[in-house]
């Protein structure tokens, strides 16, 4: 029985990671077509770096990821703090609502945002589809992830520590600055990294909220794949995989800190 379980584990791991491994392998393959291995090369990566439009898309992706992560980290942390510290009517409802962006299908979210932005545009002329709307779209789901990560960190915080700070003469701001924030910082950073990686490789919501001139890497990959998969795309995908993996590993390391 344990043997069977072990085998099962390996099968699941293979199922999950083999496709990714194949992509990464193919990004180093000399052959332009097909999946036969003909030799190792960096050329697809080099070509990618000389492709000036890809640089623009990468820039867009990074602008969106950085901006949305900054906004979502501040808002998500505040949300978690509010839920931790205060009790108010509808607190239970809000605690539940946090999970909605996490579980709702991205496509529903994307369509809803698109309709909302269109509605605002019709009435005010604001919110043309652009990088701004992508950022807003990403923030909507990132807040939830940041708030959830920060909340779990806050749950382990001894309330007596904040009281001790006040007892020693620290007002609310000083207490937050010198005690609360340093203690939850690993959670805040982990939440931010998670939000960053989610934004980096988001396709569905970006697809619905992007306008002309605001193509990101995932959108570009999707567009190119329709014309046929090239090794450059494999290289690009591999870079995205590496970036998100680094983000996740850093996030986990931060959360483990005491």
């Amino acid at each position: 029985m344990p043997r069977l379980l072990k085998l099962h584990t390996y099968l699941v791991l293979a199922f999950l990671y083999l496709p990714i491994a194949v992509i990464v392998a193919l990004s180093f393959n000399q052959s332009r077509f097909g999946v036969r291995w003909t030799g190792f090369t960096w050329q697809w990566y080099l070509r990618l770096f000389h492709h000036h439009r890809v640089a623009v898309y990468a820039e867009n992706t990074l602008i969106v990821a950085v901006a949305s992560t900054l906004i979502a980290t501040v808002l998500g942390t505040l949300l978690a703090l509010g839920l931790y510290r205060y009790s108010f009517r509808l607190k239970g409802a809000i605690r539940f609502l946090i999970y909605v962006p996490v579980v709702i299908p991205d496509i529903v979210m994307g369509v809803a945002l698109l309709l909302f932005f269109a509605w605002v545009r019709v009435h005010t002329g604001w919110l043309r589809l652009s990088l701004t709307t992508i950022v807003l779209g990403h923030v909507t789901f990132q807040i939830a992830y940041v708030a959830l990560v920060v909340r779990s960190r806050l749950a382990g915080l001894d309330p007596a520590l904040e009281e001790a700070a006040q007892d020693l003469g620290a007002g609310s701001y000083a207490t937050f600055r010198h005690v609360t924030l340093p203690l939850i910082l690993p959670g805040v950073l982990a939440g931010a990294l998670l939000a960053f990686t989610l934004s980096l490789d988001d396709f569905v919501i970006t697809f619905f909220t992007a306008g002309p001139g605001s193509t990101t890497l995932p959108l570009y990959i999707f567009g190119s794949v329709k014309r046929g998969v090239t090794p450059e795309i494999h290289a690009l995908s591999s870079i995205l995989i590496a970036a998100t993996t680094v983000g996740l590993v850093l996030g986990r390391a931060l959360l483990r800190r005491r």
Partner: protein
Amino acid sequence: MNPTPVVELEGVRKVFDGGTVALDGVTLTVYEGEFFSLLGPSGCGKTTLLRILGGFEVPDAGTVRIAGVDVREVPPYRRPVNTVFQNYALFPHMTVFDNIAFGLRMRRRPPAEVRRKVGWAMELVQIEGLSARRPHELSGGQKQRVALARALVNEPRVLLLDEPLGALDLKLRKQLQIELMRLQMELGTTFVYVTHDQEEALVMSDRMAVMQNGRLEQVGLPEELYERPKTAFVARFLGRSNLIEAHAVAPDRAETPFGPLRVSGGLTPGRRYLLGIRPEKLRLAREPWNRANTVTARVKEIVYTGAENQYILEARGGELVAYTLNADISEPGYEEYDYGETVHVHLPPENLVVIDEPIGDEPRPPAP
């Protein structure tokens, strides 16, 4: 010289969400330089009282004055008090030095003064050399000392201590009890000390209060509370007590299940009382006493505790507990008795405490 009041509570009441009455009209004065203990079982309101002094709870009714100032609207960070928290609450992300310096830095003291005072406080609690450590690298006793130094370095008017020795083992506890008393005498700071350990309160306090159900049962000197408990609760909570139901027949005489007993006086004939007597005040003898207040009993249980022999005696009117010193001399009062042996128990009238409290389930009178 008249003592100066530092903490004055008047009719303080606190009800928590859900209707639990934590404090039910507490009136209390603590004087400058006193070591004052609040003693009671868990849930009696002693910690709530301390938190009200610290500013972490706001009373629903009543006034609280610290150093003559009504502190109702004063937040914790502007009160002239500091707290030693139950589980120390040391900042885990700061070194010992930074923990102790926190209060001074919050009050923007110059760095030279911070260094000097932190050094003074560390010397005071004998933790020199630990300044670069983090709290997780300290033993329980060391954490306790850091918590003390962190509070005392601010030179508070009143130091609030919430069961500070609760998490330590017995030996360390005894040692720190003595150190706390030494510190308190040396500094002359007023200590308000919350504990559920009756021995700790008796040993350390100048004055103490016993609390139950959000009320002060009795306030006074430790020996007053021990020798002259005013309520059955105090008599039972502080050490052990034989409580005897009595029906007064004269100002100094009452009928009890053990027969008629004489007391030093103060009874109203016709009323019911409890008479309390400490186990170590019972006098045991093999020969009859030929005096009043004598009960004949049989030894039912013997508990050997080292320094004392504790006897559970069965008499016609019920059980009595008696302690005798284990001094190995055969004088009256030091003799040893065997299981089943008949002993003559004398209850000296001057040691019988009259507890003037409604007996049984009669309702208490409302708080004044």
